[in-house]
């Protein structure tokens, strides 16, 4: 009853303010749906300006690994499970690279309270992966990340083929199996 009342009141408001925009969006979605139907795996990274931990500007379009798989993982200094995930990757990173050529980008979403803390932390931990800084969450928003840790796996063509949110002990083994498949050119759409 309550919910109905709410819906009823808002319908008029809705119509006057948003109907046009919604209809336009509806058509955009239809267009998009055709795309999804035809090109299920097609995907590309958005173009967003972030920084390297050396302070240089870096565009996410330049994330590249010469035809090998890429992992992009969003993390922050305040996120314990994220740091565990990165530690777990770091421990096996050398082996992974040798076997699959994978490259890991660890994107810190720490805001300016702690962006300058990231470099000493990462070096203090002796992490080997590429670390990027996204202090205002621009890349995070463009990738539709709701909560962290959130990890994307890209195949050699730069298509996103797998995503996972949250980290539990042992997730790295699961991720590695997928990286191996991707490196071998297998499809993982059913995992």
């Amino acid at each position, binding site marked *: 009853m309550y919910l109905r009342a*709410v819906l009823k009141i*808002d319908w008029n408001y*809705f119509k006057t303010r*948003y109907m*046009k*925009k919604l*209809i*336009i*969006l509806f*058509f*955009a*979605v239809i*267009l*998009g*749906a*055709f*795309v999804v139907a035809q*090109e299920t795996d*097609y*995907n*590309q990274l*958005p*173009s967003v*300006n972030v920084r390297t931990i*050396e*302070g*240089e*500007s870096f565009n996410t379009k330049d994330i590249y690994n010469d035809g090998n798989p890429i992992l992009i993982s969003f993390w922050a200094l*305040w996120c314990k499970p994220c740091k565990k995930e990165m530690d777990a990757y770091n421990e096996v990173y050398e082996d992974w690279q040798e076997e699959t050529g994978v490259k890991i980008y660890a994107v810190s979403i720490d*805001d*300016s*309270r*702690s*962006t*300058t803390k990231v470099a*000493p*932390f*990462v*070096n*203090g*931990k*002796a992490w080997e992966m590429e670390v990027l800084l996204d202090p*205002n*969450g*621009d890349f995070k*928003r*463009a990738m*539709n990340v*709701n909560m962290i840790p959130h990890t994307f796996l890209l195949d050699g063509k730069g298509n996103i083929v*797998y*995503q*996972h*949110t*949250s980290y*539990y*002990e*042992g*997730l790295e*083994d*699961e991720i590695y199996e997928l990286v191996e498949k991707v490196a071998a050119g297998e499809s993982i759409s059913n995992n």
Partner: protein
Amino acid sequence: MRRVIIILSILVFAVVSSQAQGFQNFLDKSEVHGSFEFDGAYYIADDAIGFSEEDWIKGQPFRFNGFGKIVYTNGGFSAGLRYEAYLPPLLGYDQDLEGQGFPNIWASYTHEKFSFTVGSFYEQFGNGLTLRSFEEWMLGYDNAINGARIVYEPIKGLRFKGIYGVQRYYWYKWEPNTRGIVKGLDGELDFNQVFRGMADSKVRFTFGLSAVSKYQVDDMKELNLPENVSNIGARFNMGIGKFNINTEYAWKVNDPSVLNNFIYKDGQAWMLSLTYSTKGFGFFGMFKRYDNVSTKSDRYVTNNALDVTFLPPNTEIHTYMLTSMYPYATQPNGEIGFQFQVNYKIPKKSKLGGKYGMGIAVNYSQVNDIARDSVAYVDAFGVPAEGIGQPGSKGWTSPFFKFGDPVFWQDLNIEIDKKFSKKLKGSLLYMYQTYNIEVLEGHPEDGPIVYANIAVLEMTYKFTSKHALRWELQGLWTEQDDGNWAAALLEYTISPNWFIAVFDQWNYGNPEKEFQNHYYNVSFGYTRRTTRLSINYGRQREGIVCVGGVCRVVPASNGFYFTLSTNF
């Protein structure tokens, strides 16, 4: 309206039916993505923790916050919208959020050197001392700018930005002569990218300048208020080998507001950080000073909204149950502080490091009030007087580097983490804290200062490659506020899908026996790829949740909580 639909229908039909290369290409480049989250609660009255039907639930035990976002992209073009609903908002969120609708709608287009955005957008200049708009779902915070933005990058490494708009204020529609209009310009030059001679230099140098102005009509009879308030900032980042210096200084003209008690003083913010790091060792040092820099695009607003600038707090972020009991919030009217941190990894195969090495982190931070001297002013009866922070006066004068009384915050924490074997790892944290509860929470009766010792032990044991058990034991000891606390947590996870956790926080040292409560919880969750569902039942402790220097007070509560989140 109808015409738009007809045109669009034709367009869709044409696109779908055509096999022409151009359309095919258009289709190939089109993408639709989005995300969704629903956070709901069913509250149950619990008088033992002061969570009563009359004061809190008020006949609405079921509450939720939810959003959905859809983004369409096609090459350099993207457009999207975000729907939000708070019916009614969860307890502890600003109740002004109640309502539903589309707060954010935007379109943007990037072509070679230019990028244009209209609608709602988020932007940060430098460290945010002159401008930052952002959203933080966990806090119910969103100060998106609704207007237009242009970014121009004539050559790689040189970028200009211009923004113009009004900020989101819950569901209140912007009308002329209400909240202010924000305008801003920013330029940043990366010397190593622009000047070829420096491309391979060991010295990396970036320099930026920004200017932001807000306009709000002067609608006050008693005072003559500035309608245009500008804030100017300069910054640079310089790296030399393993060293890095980052600094930003911002100065703003006088901006009388409710927050600063209508003083006509200019404001200044300065932050400086120095780091040194090499493999296995990192050092971080920071100094910050804020003097009368609260900047909102409506001078009458005092809640967590409409901030034009961002004033990062100068303290470590703590996330364990008891270490986050007393979090710091920036004091924009004035604070001065510093912070040091050392991260060191004791190498593998050394005596202390063992087979896997051992990590040590030591952090110290302190924040005080700035020192203030009184200034001359004329009081309400026209009599000359002297005072600090008097409305209509120039506020105060303050020696730049002097630390004033009282101390707002002190935190010394030492954390070690060690892996004992392939199956067992753990960490130990000790923290000593000084927390000015009178200034930071406004409870003079409990203060003014809380001194607390906190210890946390966390261990993880891996049974197999997928099954693991994690446990935490925590203690907080203090003579002030609610006295001593103990906490314990047990969490079992099955990678990559399942977790179940039980935890309890027990206020065993509360000076009043009837308040020696247990805050027990059971929580359970399932994750598949990016879809996450979690259900929690139990008591929430009264506390403050802070993200990025913005905090909200959460009341004690009891009930069921659900979260469903996904993206595509």
